[in-house]
């Protein structure tokens, strides 16, 4: 899905936990997330803390979208 949307002419950032799959499939901008059943959250934290974590991942995703890449790139910390 990432590839087809990118092919349509839009930069896509793939937020996912199992980044090796994303690399195999062919996403260009990849941001690692927390866990498979809750990629952008952490139920072990307080709701406030959890939202901070989510915000950090979204900010990193937006940063990735503003970064020129010439191939597959995983945006780690």
């Amino acid at each position: 899905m990432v590839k087809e949307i990118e092919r349509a002419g839009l930069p896509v950032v793939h937020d996912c936990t199992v980044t090796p799959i994303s690399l195999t499939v062919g996403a260009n901008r990849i941001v690692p997330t927390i866990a498979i059943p809750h990629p952008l959250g952490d139920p072990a934290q307080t709701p406030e803390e959890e939202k901070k974590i989510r915000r950090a991942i979204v900010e990193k995703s937006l940063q990735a979208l503003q970064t020129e890449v010439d191939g597959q790139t995983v945006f780690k910390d």
Partner: protein
Amino acid sequence: MEKIKVIHYINQFFAQIGGEEEAGHPVEFFPGEVKGPGMAFNQAFGDEAEIIGTVVCGDGFFNENIDDTTEKILAWVEEQKPDLFIAGPAFNAGRYGVACGTMAAAVQEKLGIPAVTGMYVENPGADMFKDKVYIASTKNSAAGMRDAVKVMAPLGLKLARGEEIGASCQDGYIPQGIRVNFFEEERGSKRAVKMLLAKLAGKPYTTEYPMPAFDRVDPQPAVKDMAHATIALVTSGGIVPKGNPDAIESSNASHYGEYDITGVNDLTSDEYETAHGGYDPTYANEDADRVLPVDVLRDMEKEGKIGKLYDKFYTTVGNGTAVASAKAFAEEIGAKLKADGVDAVILTST
């Protein structure tokens, strides 16, 4: 002759511990035990080989702790000194496929013990590991267990005995990109004419020279002005309005959903849930923002960090869904977003 000793790796589902709710089940080793598909393997081995222990791990646990879990399993396997390591088969289960491929490759590479696994050709684990280990080509669901064992057991025995492995079409594994020479019974001209006749008659035929599929897309240029950009959310995590109004299937989805989020600032458990059947839905059902971060993007929209969160989100279930379906959904979604002036997309996956 002494029996070939086999260690078998399976997930929580095939060990009958549980389904998705047990995907976080930590890795465990059961020396001397045969579980689930291990029974079928033992039967297929007859007097030639036997399973001497079974490693069980939740698919979520493995994928979230790949390095530590791999080390742990390697230590157990090394201690048992088997002649062969079998993982799965994983069919079309993505995380299970990654786990099976990772372990089979690690055991073979680090311990020098031959390994075999089995997967459906579209399993992401197949592409990742097909050039590292022999992956028997299986059907896309556990209904294909009997056929999978029929291919994996003899392939495994051959590997354990150090016998020569035939071409992928002979021994039933997913092609590794390595050419294996053998004599065909019919000469080339005859085979070519047969193929041509089949093609002209619209009958199925198998090419002897498949073209490699290098499907890569060049990255699009970065967003220059995020403060004025429209960002759209897309997910394969199955987030849908409560009640799943378009009945997106929990696996092998046949369609995607398009839902308006104008004025929605937060995905609450009263209004949204997940339709996905391939991960424990507890956390997404409690708070769908954990999969589709509408709340955070609304905040950032208000703060002027982004221009706008696009009015609609697109969603499907990426659980055993055919690559061809996902491709078709995303072609439509991409065209709609582009036509509607969206500048960039955040696509989340579970």
